[in-house]
């Protein structure tokens, strides 16, 4: 069928000549023999020769025909082989394309949240039927995509279940924390109850952190949200409050900035997890140092412990965990020994643009640096940190007259700010520390020091002076011959 090419046409005359050779030779031989043999046997010889020639002619023509058939078969065979090879190569290419191009693209689209039908249509459109195996590949892709999506759905529902449970726990913990805070306010006067409440409060905060961790690993945001910026100092104290060994954490100098509302909870949580690692993997008698400095790209929170440090193997593992943040929630993380910390930190880092690095510390332990990006940092409204809740400070009081009957005059009555005047009659401010020093010394204050002081005190000292004179009179002494001297003495005694 395929063998009808042009080359057989060309070759046919040659082969047809070849098959004529034996009969012709035999016919010539027969004729020669018939001429040479005696006349008596000429006829039979001729007959025999003719018969043989015919037979040879038939045989050789048959042989030639078969040769032609074999040739055509061989040609067809070669052509078929070539076709098969081509098809094989095509299939290879198509399989390769399926493996290296179509399936990854389908998975990518699936991870991007596309639906199965959409993915199949986009990756293997029906119009591409001209390419071989397109239909089959479409089937394969559809099958794989649907299977993967079913698995993803299963995983997602597991995530949602975890997040849902975590949310409920968070809600309960939050409610309980609120209640505890109210109880703490109510029982503030009874130290025994109060210290028990603090203990419970701490335990509740630990439960809350675990729930937050699970929520974060489930791809959700951690815990509650804050509306207003919170000073970094309070944020770090919030982080300290969520770990077991918060007493071992030394909060050193903290940059005077605030964290914007949306960033507060992530920073608290990430710092809490790093602090937890630091306190957990260092000897219980060592301290963990927590500082925060402002840097070009935001704020760097440094957590330094004096623990055993990181071996190379640990370092590789932590780096891997930190790098695999986008891998998502692995239920293995919740296995027998939950190791959530770094996974949570890396998830938070990925979501909020933190940078985390764990390096050997000068103390021999680990120095964890958490860099909060500048977008989450803002100016602090209350420098130095907010004092326990919104502190309302007492209105600045004007000092009353020094003669006001306060219990113990000398410490309380130190240099009233309003009472002292300069020589020009202007009020003079005095440094308290100076007064303190003078009082602490309690020896003959310099005249310059006492001059402004004795002037306002001259009024209130008079009754005492009078009483002194009176008592000395009562004792029967002379009534204070030298007033000037005695006016100095009582004030010195009082000082």
């Amino acid at each position: 069928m395929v063998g009808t090419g042009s080359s057989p046409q060309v070759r046919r005359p040659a082969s047809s000549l070849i098959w004529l050779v034996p009969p012709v030779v035999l016919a010539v031989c027969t004729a020669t023999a018939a001429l040479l043999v005696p006349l008596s046997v000429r006829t039979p010889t001729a007959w025999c020769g003719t018969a043989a020639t015919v037979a040879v002619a038939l045989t050789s023509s048959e042989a030639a025909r078969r040769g032609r058939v074999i040739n055509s078969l061989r040609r067809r065979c070669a052509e078929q082989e070539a076709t098969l090879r081509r098809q094989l190569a095509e299939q290879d290419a198509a399989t390769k394309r399926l493996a290296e191009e179509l399936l990854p693209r389908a998975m990518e689209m699936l991870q991007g949240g596309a639906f199965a039908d959409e993915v199949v249509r986009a990756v293997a459109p029906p119009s591409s039927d001209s390419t071989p195996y397109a239909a089959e590949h479409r089937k394969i892709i559809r099958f794989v995509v649907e299977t993967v999506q079913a698995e993803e759905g299963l995983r997602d529902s597991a995530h949602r279940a975890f997040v849902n449970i975590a949310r409920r726990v968070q809600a309960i913990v939050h409610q309980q924390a609120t209640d505890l805070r109210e109880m703490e306010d109510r029982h503030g006067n009874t130290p025994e109850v109060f210290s028990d409440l603090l203990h419970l409060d701490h335990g509740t905060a630990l439960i809350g952190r675990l729930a937050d961790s699970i929520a974060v690993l489930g791809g959700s945001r951690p815990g509650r949200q804050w509306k207003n910026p919170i000073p970094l100092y309070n944020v770090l104290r919030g982080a300290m409050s969520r770990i077991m060994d918060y007493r071992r954490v030394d909060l050193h100098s903290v940059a005077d900035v605030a964290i914007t509302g949306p960033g507060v909870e992530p920073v608290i949580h990430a710092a809490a997890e790093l602090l937890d690692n630091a306190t957990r993997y260092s000897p219980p008698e060592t301290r963990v140092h927590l500082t925060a400095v402002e840097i070009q790209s935001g704020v760097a929170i440094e957590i330094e412990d004096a623990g055993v440090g990181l071996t190379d193997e640990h370092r590789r593992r932590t780096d891997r965990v930190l790098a695999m943040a986008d891998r998502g929630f692995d239920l293995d993380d919740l296995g027998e020994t939950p190791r959530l910390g770094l996974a949570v930190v890396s998830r938070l880092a990925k979501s909020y643009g933190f940078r985390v690095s764990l390096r050997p510390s000068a103390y021999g332990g680990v120095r964890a640096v958490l860099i909060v990006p500048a977008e989450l940092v803002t100016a602090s409204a209350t420098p130095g940190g907010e004092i326990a809740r919104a502190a309302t400070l007492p209105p600045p009081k004007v000092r009353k007259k020094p003669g006001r009957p306060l219990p113990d005059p000398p410490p309380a009555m130190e240099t009233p700010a309003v009472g002292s005047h300069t020589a020009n009659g202007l009020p003079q401010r005095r440094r308290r520390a100076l007064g303190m020093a003078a009082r602490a010394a309690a020896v003959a204050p310099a005249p310059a020091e006492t001059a402004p002081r004795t002037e306002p005190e001259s009024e209130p000292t008079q009754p005492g002076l009078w009483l002194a004179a009176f008592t000395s009179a009562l004792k029967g002494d002379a009534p204070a011959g030298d007033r000037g001297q005695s006016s100095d003495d009582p004030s010195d005694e009082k000082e």
Partner: protein
Amino acid sequence: MSKPERAWDPGNPDRLYIVTKGCGESKQSSTGLDLVTLIVARTETDPGLQPEHETIVRMCDYPLSVAEISAYLTLPVSTVTVLLNDLLSRGHVEARPPVPVAALPDVGLLEAVMHGLQNL
């Protein structure tokens, strides 16, 4: 759920046990601080102090009772007592008994004065 959240710290993640550094047990009896004990600062505020301590030192420029400090800081009295104990042990503030009811001279002295005056 949201209502108590508003009522409870509108913007502070601090917990009380962090403020007191974990010592909920105040040694109230040993230091004798009670609600009416007057607290006076003895030193200037010092940058190394915890903000709560610093605030107390600053506001006690003028004598304040423990109850007043607790109200201004909106912290429970026990917490304030712990903070004050810290400050007292470090000498930043000074506690003194409330109102000097016993400051009046005793009757014996008054009688002596009276007799003295009569004898004049």
